[in-house]
């Protein structure tokens, strides 16, 4: 977002009355024993089973899993685009299965949604697309104009109201989608693979916008993705789905720092460098001579801090080289790995507080070669 747009957006946000701000405390979702079975010609498919989950007000909650893991079905039960076969979905403590059509429409106005393919109406302008939720809710015309302008400002599309969606770039289309979802001032925003159709640069800008909206409007965001990088970028907590069941869940730094389930590890794979190839070729498991250097892997899972001074001190003048490093800062914690070569002179003892896990993965005779 440009500076000017951000300023505009900020002024737009401050206009939201105090009463609305108080309601912002709402926005919780609870799944109780949720299950979903699809009947198809091939027989029954269990898409989700025994999902118990709590999403807190105001957090950015990520649902990740491989394709077919049931993410989309789970997300769609929150605004009842999908009806669970068993179990309950509670939005702000209310069982949404019991809502009649009017109640359902009211719920959907409190729960916005954006889509992978944007799903904008091609026959309507940007303005008309964003205005539609208010029009069908019977909001007065000048109030609609005011709020649509506000929403377009918020997403950095001021002045684009008269354009048709087909003339916009993918990132702009998603911004229209976000404006349309926010114009009813929902307390929850559902994001269905919202960045999967976008290029990396646009993805970053859309994620930043979502983060921004979450912080300024205080609304709960539930997003599904198959990319761990999206989770790392903006989520507070994450649940990993595998074959319709919860594989693991927790704070993002915990799941990234110490993934327990094979599905999580597989999803994290693209974000991790393996052992550098040239090093792997020369690595041997046991010490062959006094000149060998130990290759040490330090894993940081969120509790230890990579303290370079301490590491150097520990090496005690024997020489310490950094071979490869990958430390991400997630939610203010260091997550990742350091690969060090410790100069000749026997195995050093690494104190436990230095890293969350330390191990010697092998020896090389010359790190420069």
């Amino acid at each position, binding site marked *: 977002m440009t500076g000017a747009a951000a300023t505009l957006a900020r002024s737009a946000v401050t206009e939201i009355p105090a009463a609305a701000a108080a309601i912002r405390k709402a926005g919780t979702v609870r799944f109780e024993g949720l299950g979903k079975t699809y009947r198809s010609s091939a027989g029954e498919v269990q898409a989700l089973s025994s999902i118990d989950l709590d999403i807190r007000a105001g957090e950015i909650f990520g649902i990740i899993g491989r394709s077919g893991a049931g993410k989309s079905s789970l997300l769609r039960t929150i605004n009842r685009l999908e009806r669970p076969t068993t179990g309950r979905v509670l939005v702000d403590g209310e069982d949404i299965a019991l809502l009649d*059509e009017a109640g359902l429409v009211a719920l*959907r106005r409190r729960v916005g949604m954006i889509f992978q393919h944007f*799903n904008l*109406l*091609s*026959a309507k302008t940007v303005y008309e697309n964003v205005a539609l939720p208010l029009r069908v809710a019977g909001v007065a015309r000048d109030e609609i104009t005011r709020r649509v302008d506000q929403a377009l400002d918020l997403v950095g599309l001021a002045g684009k109201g008269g354009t048709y969606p087909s003339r916009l770039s993918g990132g702009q289309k998603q911004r229209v989608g976000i404006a349309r979802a926010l114009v009813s001032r929902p307390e929850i925003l559902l994001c269905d693979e919202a960045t999967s159709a976008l290029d990396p640069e646009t993805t970053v800008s859309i994620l930043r916008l979502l983060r921004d909206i979450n912080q300024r409007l205080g609304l709960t965001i539930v997003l599904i993705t198959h990319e761990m990088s999206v989770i790392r970028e903006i989520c507070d907590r994450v649940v990993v789905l595998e074959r319709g069941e919860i594989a693991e869940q927790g704070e993002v730094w915990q799941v990234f720092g110490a993934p327990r389930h094979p599905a999580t590890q597989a999803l994290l794979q693209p974000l991790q460098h393996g052992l550098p190839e040239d090093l792997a070729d020369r690595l041997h498991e046991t010490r062959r001579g006094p000149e060998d250097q130990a290759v040490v892997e330090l894993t940081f899972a969120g509790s230890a801090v990579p303290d370079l001074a301490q590491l150097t001190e520990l090496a005690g003048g024997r020489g310490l080289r950094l071979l490869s490093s990958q430390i991400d800062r997630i939610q203010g914690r260091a997550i990742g790995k350091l690969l060090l070569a410790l100069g000749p002179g026997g195995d050093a003892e690494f104190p436990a507080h230095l890293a969350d896990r330390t191990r010697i993965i092998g020896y090389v005779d010359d790190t420069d070669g």
Partner: protein
Amino acid sequence: MLTTQMVDRLQQALWDTVLMVSVSAGIAVLAGIPLAVFLVTSGSDGIFPAPRLNRIIGTVVNGFRAVPFIVLLVALIPFTRLVAGTTIGVWAAIVPLSVSATPFFARIAEVSLREVDPGLVEAAQSIGCRRWDIVRHVLLPEALPGIAGGFTITVVSMIGASAMAGAVGAGGLGDVAIRYGYQRFDTTVMLVVIAILILLVSAVQFSGDHAVRRLKAR
């Protein structure tokens, strides 16, 4: 060459054809679009599910589509008398023409409505649209270019069908071509009628295509 009398006759015939086709086309739109919306939305996974009624109406539509127009023209005579008060003339031809064009147009409009991305319907639901809002703001506007194209096809085929309206004394270009061109071996009249029909159909097709282009250019 054509006598002045023949020119007058052709003028009258052109007017009769235009009148028959435009009134019937208007009725086909008014009745066909709701019918198409019903056929699309009342399926078991539609927004107004009524699968049994959907099957019944679908069968009726197919029934009308199966009957050749000339047979329909005769078979509908009692109905025509009831509605138009007469069984001969332009207004008597409009009844069977509309009855035949409506299911035809409805099926074509149905195809366009089905092509509307289900994601758009889902998006509309997610922003709190009621079912009628979805019909009005999503299905119809999004399918409009296709419906306009289908309407063009319907009108062109109705111009063809109106040639048989002579059977109920409704006149029109086809009637002139058969009575004067064919039965009295007047090749000139035949050729003139064909030329007028070609121009008429081209004009309809051109305006239809133009409308579709404009609707799509957004």
